[in-house]
Each structure stands twice: as C-alpha cells, then as structure tokens.
C-alpha cells in the first residue's frame, strides 16, 4: 500500500504554508531521514524529512504553491514492493467519518435580523488616507524600524531578536538594517536583561525589551515593577525609565498552562506603568510607536495568534496613536461589548451573530489597559444601558472585574442589567484540544452573555 505524505504542521499555530521547493522528484528513492522538501511558514523555512523509505510515485502539490493546508497530501510514496507507476492509496478523506452535523438549537421565535454595523474607521486616521494591508507582525516590525531610524537611542534587545530574526519573526530584518550594536541577542536571562534594560533607560536610552513570551517575563517582573515602574516616583522625578517591554501574551495554540497566561491585569495593577494590548495591525503600529516615544515604562502585550493576521494600516510616514484611548470598533445600540487584544475578534464575531438575532451590539476595543479609558465605555453604556466585558484570561481580579466595578461606581444609574464578565475558565489552561477550546473565551460565550443582559432567550 502506498503512503501519503501530507503537509506537516511545523509550529503550534501553523494552519497552512508554502511548499517552497521539492528536493526529490518523481521516481527518486528515499531513505527515512532524507530531506524531501522545504516548507515556508510565516515564521520560518523548514525542511520536511521522509519518515518512511520508498520511491516517490507522485508529487501532488507543485513547488511554489502557497497556502497549502496542514494535513493535505503533497506526495505519494510507493513502498518497496510496489510499482510506483501504479500506486493505490486508501484516501484518508474517504475513510474519515463525516463530521457530526452541528446541533441547531430550535430557534424560539427569533427576532428579525438586523444589518451588522460596519467597522468604524479609527477617528485618528485622516479622511482619504491610503491604506496598505499588513500583518500584525509586519506592523510591529515597521513601528520599531521607524522609531530606530528616527532616534539613535532606541535599541532592541531580547532572546533570538537578531540573528534568528525573532522567535516569532517580529524583529525580521532589524539586525540587517541597524547592526549588532542596536539589535542585541541576549542569553536566556530574562531577569538579567530586563534589569539591564531598565538601567540603560535610567541613563536616558530607550530600550525595547522583547520577551519571547510574557510567560517568561515572570522571571523579570521584579525589574518591570520595582525598578522600572517605581523609580520615577521614588526619586521625586529625578530618574526616568523610558523603556518598552514587549512580546506575545496570552494563550497561543495548545502550548499548555505555563505558556498561555494573560498578564494584562497583573501589569495594569501597577501605577507607574502604561499597559497596551492592541488588536489590529494599525493599532499595533500606531501604539508601539507611541510606546517607544513615551517617557514612561510601557508594557506592550501582543498575541501570537494575531501575528499572521492582516489588516488595513494607514500608509502614512509617521502613524502614531495616543496611548489611553479606547476605540469604538463597531457602533450599536442594544448592548456594549468591551474587550481588548485577540478577544476583540471574538467580540466582532459575536456582534455579527447578535445582529442576526436582532440585537445591535457596540464593540469597544480598550487598546490601552492602563490608563484605562473608562469614559468611552461609560458614554457607550449611557446609550446601550447594558454591558458585557470579554477577556481571554482568568476572571478574578481581571481587567473585566475592574471595568465592571468602575461601571458600578460611575454609571450605576445608566445600567438596566448587571455588567457581565466573560472570562476564560478559572483553571490553568489545559492541553487537550477540546478542553482548551472549552476554557477560552469565544464568540458564542459572548453572545450568550449579551443575550442574558438583554433579557432575551
């Protein structure tokens, strides 16, 4: 029986890739361990090795093909006793059981659907601005590169930021443009290089410290809080610390409990820090540039799952956004959904689903967690009188808790229903696919909460 060679998954988040090059051709014999092909993901170019020995009977995907989904057959390998010209493959697709049909809950007299409101343009973008499509990863890289071109005091430091081009390729090309004095690979030393960066910032340099993920920044949190955030105050304003700590934050894809935590609430707790957690590429660019220019220590929380997502970004020479301003991503009248970072995407999906059911949801992206733009949320709640706060992260002492508390204090009389939090489940994030999905926030959970505060079934 011939063997199907399928597109391999080469990283936890990879869904598709480019088949860059075949190193074997039809008719070649291969040994286990031979390199068959090169696959490009958005992060790296990887070699695919043969697991079995045999003869390449057929190449199914030509080299240069983009967006080949993980699991798709790319070649057929004839085994030793088979005729490569006449192979027979038991198609996995045929053998696989058909997916169970989704169980539709009987719609109980659904309200008339309404048209989903369009995404609002950021008011900070001048009308008529040309837009360019960039991934979040490119937008972040461009933000750093632009600031480094402008200011020689800005440098980037972290693990694998230089020669490896970034563990998640966010710093791609910076070493080549700015050289090894300004793009600096560190040893695996989070505590040490966070402190080193803070010390350099005391003297007026503007370090951008990349953590490979914020999960590893727990090794460094003493310097972020005790050294970076508090020194201006403790020195009566004599010593500044203009530093950015940035990197991916929150759950990625099946990397388990120690690599999947959201730290927004931890850092947002601390006076002396600014905390930014943007969703789309334009905000990533405009806010990272603002963070690098800010004279205060800034914690800039990215999301690995968003790095490859593309968005329109204003094609401006110097696109900088104000820190501390939330953005109404979509207008609505019945319920306000407040969120930030990757969960904004789920909130937008939820708003679409709610529109189908006749509920008009306003989606607010906080963008900055500290200082928190509660005024924008209050203004929205004055209109909708109902609010759901959605956040990927644990519920207790969360950003959602704080937004809820502030609404209770400052907008109590405007509320027609209790503010409801939609958080990740209160457990360390599990590995199993089904458990992980069950633990994190998704659009359906937001829809459920929004309907509950609207008192609709």
């Amino acid at each position, binding site marked *: 029986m011939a063997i199907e060679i399928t597109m391999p998954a080469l990283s936890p988040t990879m869904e598709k890739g480019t088949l860059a090059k075949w190193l074997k051709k039809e008719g070649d014999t291969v040994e286990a361990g031979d390199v068959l092909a090169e696959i490009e993901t958005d992060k790296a170019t990887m070699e695919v090795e043969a697991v079995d020995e045999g003869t390449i009977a057929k190449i199914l995907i030509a080299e240069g093909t983009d967006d080949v989904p993980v699991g798709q057959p790319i070649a057929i390998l004839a085994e030793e006793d088979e005729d490569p010209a006449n192979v027979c493959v038991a198609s996995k697709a045929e053998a696989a059981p058909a997916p169970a049909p989704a169980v539709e809950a009987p719609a109980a007299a659904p309200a008339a659907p309404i048209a989903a409101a369009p995404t609002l343009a950021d008011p900070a973008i001048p009308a008529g601005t040309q837009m360019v499509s960039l991934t979040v990863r490119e937008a972040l890289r461009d933000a750093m590169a632009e600031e480094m071109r402008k200011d020689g005091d800005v*440098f980037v430091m972290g693990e694998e930021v230089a020669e490896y081009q970034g563990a998640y390729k966010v710093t791609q090309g910076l070493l080549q443009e700015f050289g*090894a*004095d300004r793009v*600096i690979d*560190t*040893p695996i*030393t989070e*505590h*040490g*290089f*966070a*402190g*080193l*960066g*803070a*010390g*350099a*910032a*005391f*003297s*007026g*340099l503007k370090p951008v410290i990349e953590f490979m993920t914020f999960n590893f920044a727990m090794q460094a949190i*003493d*310097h972020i809080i*005790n*050294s970076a955030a508090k*020194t*201006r*105050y*403790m*020195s*009566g*304003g*004599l*010593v*500044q610390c203009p530093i950015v700590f940035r990197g991916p934050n929150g759950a990625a894809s099946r990397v388990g409990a120690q690599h999947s935590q959201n730290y927004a609430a931890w850092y947002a707790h601390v*006076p*002396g820090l*600014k905390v930014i957690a943007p969703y789309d590429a334009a905000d990533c660019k405009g806010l990272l540039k603002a963070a690098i220019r*800010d*004279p*205060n220590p800034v914690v800039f929380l990215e999301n690995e799952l968003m790095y490859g997502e593309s968005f329109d970004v204003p094609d401006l020479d110097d696109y900088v956004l104000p820190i501390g301003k939330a953005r109404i991503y979509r207008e609505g009248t019945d319920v306000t959904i407040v969120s930030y970072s990757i969960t904004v995407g789920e909130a937008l999906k939820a708003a679409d689903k709610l529109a189908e059911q006749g509920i008009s949801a306003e989606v607010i992206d906080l963008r900055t967690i500290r200082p928190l733009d509660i005024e924008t949320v209050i203004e929205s709640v004055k209109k909708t009188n109902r609010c759901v706060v959605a956040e990927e992260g644990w519920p207790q002492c969360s950003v959602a808790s704080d937004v809820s508390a502030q609404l209770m204090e400052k907008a109590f009389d405007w509320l027609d229903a209790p503010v409801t939090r939609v958080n990740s489940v209160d457990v360390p994030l599990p590995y199993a696919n089904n458990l992980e999905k069950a633990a994190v926030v998704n659009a359906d959970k937001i829809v459920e909460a929004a309907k509950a505060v609207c008192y609709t079934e």
Partner: protein
Amino acid sequence: MTTAKTTKKAAKPTRRRAAKPALYEASNDELIEFYRQMLMIRRFEEKAGQMYGMGLIGGFCHLYIGQEAVAVGVQTALKDGDSVITGYREHGHMIAAGCDPRGVMAELTGRSGGVSRGKGGSMHMFDPARGFYGGHGIVGAQVSLGTGLGFAAKYRKSDNVSIAYFGDGAANQGQVYESFNMARIWNLPVIYIIENNQYAMGTSVARASSEIELYRRGESFRIPGKQVDGMNVLAVRAAMDEAVAHCRAGEGPFILEMKTYRYRGHSMSDPAKYRSKEEVQKMRAEHDSIDQLKQMILDQGIMDEAGLKDIDREIKAAVADAATFATECPEPDLSELYTDVLA
C-alpha cells in the same frame, strides 16, 4: 554588540586572583580629603542612628558605619560621567558621591527637602546629576541595573564606567550571574564592588556561600577579580585604579571584593545576636579605617591633633546643620502624593 573580543580571548582564560596588596600613593592633601570624607560619613551615620532613636526617621535604616573606606576609595577614583548604583545601605555612597547631606538627611526624615522630596526614604535615594542612580531596596536588583548603566556607557561610545555595589548577601542572587555573563559577553565597563561585611543580615558568609572567596565568583565568566582590604582606603583606591583602567581600556568588567565590616546591626532594629560583642570590638580596635588613616596622618606629620580636631568640628557642624534642616523642613505637600507617577 561586538563579540569578537570574547571569541578571541576564549583560548586564553583571564583568571586573575588576589595579587599582592598594593597601596595607593596619596598626596598629603588627598590623605586629608579621604579622612575628611570618611569622617563625614561616620558622623552623618551616627547622627542618623540617633535621629532614628528619636523617632524622626521611620521604616528601615541601614547604617554604613565601619565601611567608610570602601565608598571613599571607590568614589575618588571616578570621573565625571561615571555612574554609581547600590543597594539600600547607600547613605555613605551618596555622601562620597558629593550629594548634599541636607538632602540626604531630609530624605531620611521624609521631608520636602529630601533628595526624593520625601517620597523615596532611606533605601530609595537618587542624584543622577552626580551619577548616583540609587538606592535600591531589592537585594541584587542594582547589579542588573548597574550592568545596564555600563551598557549605556558603551552604547554611547564613551569611556565612562559603571560602579555596581552589592553585598555578600546579594552575591548569592541569580541575577548577579546573569549580569556577569552579559557584562563579559559584551565587555561592558562595569566594576562590581562586593562589599563583604561578612553578614547578610544575620547569616555569615560561611553559612550562606559555597565559595566564600567572593572575588572568585566571576571566574567561570572569565571576569578578573581581586580581594581588597576594605578597611584601608589606600588599598581600596589602588584596586579601583587598576579596575577603572581595565574598564576604560575596553577590557570588560572587573570584580573587587572589599573585605569590610559593619559595626552596627543590619538595620536599626537588629540586635546583632549572631556575632559576639568581642568580634565587633576587635574590628573597631584593630582595623578601623578612620583610626588607621588618622594615625598615618599624625605619624607622617601631615597634620597635628589640633588640625584634625578642626576638621572634626567642621564636620560636626555640617552634620548638625543637615539634621536641623531635616527636622525643620516641612513634610511634602499633600499634592505631592500624585506627582512623579508618570512623566
């Protein structure tokens, strides 16, 4: 950062250990100045202890009495643009760095005239105009921060050096070794001054350290280290001159272990039951840095008793003035509560 140097040196380890003790050849004026500064620190700290007892100083207060030769020997080897960072036993380092005694004392009393306008306290004082970057309350944090100040000096292509003081207690913190490693990879101009006063709070070096010769702690990072008699200002200064020359020449970091002793407890609230009164008495009687220097000045006829008495009187007056300022100066305005959180 360039790593070429490290690669080249890898074949030939630079593992310097304690060389013969050298003494700085000070001029007569320098000897008098060292004496004046060391005495100033001692009298300042005695006054701080007294004021703590009177309830004028709150919180923790860690006195430098006994260790004066280290701060003075180190600081006098520096030039403009060099930086100093240290832990929470920093009053002496500040006085040596030329910070205003009034501002330091008023910070201890938490008044508006304090160097941090009353918002830092004994452990958190800064004076960047004099290259003094604190004053840090977390044991060992200043080692990474000081390495960053050294990084900045090199980034700016200056020949300035960064001094990172820490104690025998901090020498067991992990980030110290993370910093040593980076400082050597990138040959940063950092001089690590380990003030080994032999007790980390109440735990002696022997009980807490597998390698008690702390100057050797840099060996596996190929950082040269020297052990120095920290009770002799001339030994401290001579070692510093060597370390500073090494750093300014771009040769990378240097470790100086200063063998010293604190006469008082770890903080004002420490009864120091972990060591005998005799041990303290013996150090004071036989090794006191100020007594040694005074004797040398008298023996060499550089100044007579009367001249030294005059210095003593001047210092007492300056300390009294600082204490009066720190007592009479008002507390910070309540509006100060909200300032300096962000720029």
